[in-house]
């Protein structure tokens, strides 16, 4: 049974998933399908939109003020943590050897700042996991996407910072642009603006100084040797 091509089944499973009656192995299988299909994701969002107002059928109860205080306190705590990350990076910025290590790429400080703020998990420093970063900018030099490469876990993660308008028949494709030779596709940007994929061993800043995103027909470039559409985002791939 292929739920991609069976509208009634897709609708039924999405509804059961959102309602919660889809349980166990069936639920996990559905979640995998959902991650890989924009169509199913859309159906799930639609059902969430339909059923979530059920929450409002319960009597409203004003929470005690201590809940807000606890939230405030928790947010202050994480804000202080964030400050210490900032000063950590500020100090590094003043360290000459650090600059030399970056090869004096002028945007590096901004690249790293954005990456820290985008990917920072509360209570976890960024440094041990991210080895490479790139901030991709558009033609107006606005930072649009941040990409980190994690050599320890062999993972490449991209995250869009501001949603880009995208026609329904187009996809955004991420490319590794080598010093010599043709660009290599790393994958398509998902509808939610993210990409997570295994970090290929040879995608290092030495061999790949640049990452770029092009606008391609839906499903990606039809040309196996490179992009067919215009470059919409680009940025230097640097080592931290």
């Amino acid at each position, binding site marked *: 049974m292929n739920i991609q091509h069976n509208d009634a089944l897709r*609708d*039924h499973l999405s*509804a*059961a998933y959102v*309602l*919660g*009656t889809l*349980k166990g192995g069936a639920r996990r299988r559905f979640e995998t399908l959902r991650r890989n299909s924009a169509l199913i994701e859309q159906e799930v*969002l639609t059902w*969430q*939109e*339909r*059923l*979530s*107002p*059920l*929450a*409002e*059928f*319960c*009597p*409203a*109860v*004003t*929470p*005690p003020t*201590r*809940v*807000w205080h*606890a*939230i405030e306190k*928790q*947010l202050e705590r*994480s804000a202080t943590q964030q400050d210490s990350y900032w000063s950590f990076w500020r100090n590094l910025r003043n360290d000459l050897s650090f600059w030399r290590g970056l090869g004096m790429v002028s945007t590096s400080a901004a690249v790293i700042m954005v990456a820290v703020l985008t990917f920072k998990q*509360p209570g976890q420093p960024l440094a041990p996991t991210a080895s490479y970063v790139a901030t991709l900018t558009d033609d107006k030099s606005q930072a649009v996407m941040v990409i980190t490469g994690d050599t320890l876990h062999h993972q490449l993660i991209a*995250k869009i*910072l501001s*949603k880009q308008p995208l026609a329904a028949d187009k996809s955004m494709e991420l490319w590794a642009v080598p010093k010599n030779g043709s660009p290599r596709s790393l994958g398509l940007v998902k509808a*939610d*603006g993210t990409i997570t994929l295994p970090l290929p061993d040879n995608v290092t800043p030495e061999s790949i100084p640049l990452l770029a995103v092009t606008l391609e027909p839906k499903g990606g470039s039809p040309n196996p040797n490179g992009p067919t559409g215009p470059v919409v985002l680009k940025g230097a791939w640097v080592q931290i």
Partner: protein
Amino acid sequence: MAIAKKDTQSFRALYDAASPKLFGFVLRILVKRELAEEVLQESFVNIWNNAASYQPHLAAPMTWMTTIVRNKAFDMLRRVEDTVEIDNDTFDKEVMEALESPDPTPIESLQITDDAKALARCFKRLEGLHQQAIALAFYHDLSHSEVAEQLKLPIGTVKTWIRRGLERLRMCLTKMESA
């Protein structure tokens, strides 16, 4: 949404506006106040931290927040499992009366979002037991067999009711949207 820019004041305003509804919802799921408070707190911290990735074109703010709150409440429910008792008074009294009334006016005067009013109009067309089966699953994370146990009905009946009920809701809401 302004909270996407990490604006504390608007976050406070959002909390003031949405927390009574969300807290009422969490209380319905978890019954115990201290658990509900903990979940509400966790949820709003999560909302703040994820505000930047919230995509307004994909979901209405209330839907997005309700989904976060519901997931967190269910996580908590799994952690404490056996201690939560299901309360059969599923809906708010005024909502219940509005659903039962043949007159459409009571729904219009409820203090709920337009999306919730639309759902109430469609929900009203379902039979009482069908409403209850769907609500039990939605609020309490129940499987078909658990809903059947609660309603003291065969599982096959419950499965069919829920499936048909959801189908009817979809048709009714889609029709209302295009009207």
